[in-house]
């Protein structure tokens, strides 16, 4: 019994190994390029994932109507992952192995991207512009991984230098969420402070889903700092602003990308007035005068039958697709992974639409742009106050 199991195991293992070598580029036919993506369509962040899916599809339509890429049409297959790492792995494997996608575009979420990256790397599939503010995508640079969104660390570095240079603040405190996102924010702040020869006066964390920040704020207030850096997402940013108001402490707050949302203003009310936040892309409401974006949003409204603007992540889908199309065009008619990488490395000062930095990729630079926008809540709405390169 035993030896037969072993031989069978080896035989089928060898067979499977042999099966992966292939003649033609995966996902590319004479008429079509297939991309795969996996976002949350049914889970906790479905309100972001659903418009992202629409974004891929609308961008593909627009690219195809303009003649496609060297005669090939682009198609994006989007798999649901429910914001669950286990299902994301299965989805990415399915996209690569069963559907044979050329690349994986726009994965939503840092944790999802981190579990998917080893798979795409091992299978030799490009990881394209995930909607994940994490440095893992571009730092250290990897051959097949391309980033669009700055990591939380870069965003908070920008926040720190803004607070230091423009506002003249010197005593920094920080409250962060004790998970990957919060720790990245923390790393960014600490790195920048190190460069400036300063260090955090007090740092304190809270658990994801926490509702009470009184102990954290009491600690920071006791440390008597003049700037509070936040490693928070949406709800916690508003919660922090309310806590600051409650204890009557007049200190400026600085948050990363997640804060730039109307939900923060709705929840925080007057308490979030004056809040600073730093983001790689402007919210949709500020870029509707861009023709391309306005056209895409118009299509979204028609297709979804809703009159509301899509979530801001819709723009991440659009920008990612435009960048992919540019890279694939540069690669020439013979599209392979190698020619695509070479094509991406020719992308220079490329404009993906209003509200983004100009994108440049080289062999050492796998993040298109390090630009961040400084935003502030003024009279109950987000306003852009400075562009930081």
């Amino acid at each position: 019994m035993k030896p037969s199991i072993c031989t069978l195991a080896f035989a089928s293992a060898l067979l499977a190994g042999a099966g992966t070598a292939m003649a033609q580029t995966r996902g590319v036919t004479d008429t079509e390029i297939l991309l795969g993506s996996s976002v949350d369509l049914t889970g906790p962040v479905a309100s972001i994932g659903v418009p992202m899916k629409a974004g891929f599809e609308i961008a593909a339509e627009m690219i195809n109507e303009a003649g496609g890429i060297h005669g090939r049409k682009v198609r994006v297959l989007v798999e649901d992952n429910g914001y669950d790492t286990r299902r994301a792995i299965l989805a990415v494997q399915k996209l690569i192995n069963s559907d044979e996608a050329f690349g994986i575009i726009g994965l939503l979420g840092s944790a999802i991207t981190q579990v998917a990256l080893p798979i795409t790397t091992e299978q030799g599939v490009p990881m394209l512009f995930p909607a994940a503010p994490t440095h893992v995508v571009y730092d250290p640079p990897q051959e097949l991984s391309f980033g669009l969104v700055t990591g939380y660390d870069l965003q908070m570095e920008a926040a720190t230098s803004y607070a230091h240079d423009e506002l003249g603040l010197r005593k920094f405190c920080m409250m962060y969420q004790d998970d990957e996102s919060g720790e990245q924010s923390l790393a960014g702040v600490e790195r920048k402070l190190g460069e400036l020869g300063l260090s955090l006066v007090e740092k304190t964390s809270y658990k994801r889903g926490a509702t009470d920040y009184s102990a954290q704020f009491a600690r920071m207030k006791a440390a008597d700092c003049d700037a509070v850096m936040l490693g928070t997402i949406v709800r916690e940013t508003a919660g922090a602003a309310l806590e600051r108001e409650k204890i009557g402490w007049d200190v400026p707050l600085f948050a990363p990308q997640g804060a730039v949302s109307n939900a923060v203003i709705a929840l925080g009310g007057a308490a979030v007035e004056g809040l600073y936040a730093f983001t790689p892309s402007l919210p949709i409401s500020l870029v509707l005068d861009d023709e391309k974006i306005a056209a895409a949003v118009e299509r979204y409204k028609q297709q979804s039958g809703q009159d509301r603007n899509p979530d801001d992540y819709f723009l991440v889908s659009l920008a990612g697709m435009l960048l992919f199309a540019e890279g694939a065009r540069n690669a020439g008619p013979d599209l392979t992974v190698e020619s695509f990488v070479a094509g991406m490395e020719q992308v220079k000062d490329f404009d993906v639409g209003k509200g983004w930095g100009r994108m440049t990729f080289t062999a050492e630079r796998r993040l298109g742009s390090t630009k961040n926008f400084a935003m502030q809540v003024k009279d109950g709405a987000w306003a852009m106050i400075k562009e930081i390169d």
Partner: protein
Amino acid sequence: MVQFLQQVISGVSIGCVYALIALGFVLIYKATETVNFAIGELMMIGAFLGFTFIVIWSLPLWLAAIIAISATALLAAMLERVFLRPMVGEPAFAILVVTIGLGFCLRAAALMVPEWSSETVRIFTPLSGSVVRLGPIVISADHAAVIVATALIVTGFFVFFKRTRMGLAMQAVSQSQLAATYMGVRTRSVSTLAWLLAGAITAVAGLLLAPIAFIHVNMGVLGLKAIPAAIIGGFSSLPGAIVGGILLGVCESLAGFYLPAGFSEVAAYILVLVVLTIRPEGLFGETIHKRV
């Protein structure tokens, strides 16, 4: 010292919310021996109902609160009649699993309401934004309201259990269901009543929490804190639940301020483990030995 008192006060106010949920939890346990893991979700539903009536339908605050509390109470009673009545006589752990399942269903139900799902909302009260000052100690009016409301409810319960027929009947049932039945107490209506009351209390907790900590579909996890509170207090003791809840709130708050990061999140659970190891019957519990 001021710092310390400030932390204690802020711990007491969040602890009052724990205490209210724990109270609902213990009420159900005493009357029906059911461990209700869905209690946090009941609180979430209560808070969302309040939000719907106050913000969306713009009813007056008091009217909206009354409707939300009664609706949650009825929902709880209905759950008892439909899902838990048939489970009488099944092993206790099977009943516990049913309540876990009900918790998931309630959360799913909340996700199905378009105005509730995937949105975080907040109820603004006339008190929002103002603060109460006690010498050097500052406390927001919303937090003070939580403490006052809890005190009122606890007094109400005390009177109910000591002075009314139904309250006495509930006490009797919790001592011995069989004996109570023989004495003419209608045990079935008592267990429905327990769920009704528990639903009402958790709805109050949800409404009190709404101005200070936002309403969202996953706020039910706060209910998990009520269980340690109940255990610390001795699980079958109503005053114990109150003390346990407040103690828990204060411990978390102090741990957050004085101890390194991480301790405040697990303070509740460390406390529970300590209590369970040293005094498994809780601070206020009575020891009951099983007769063979």
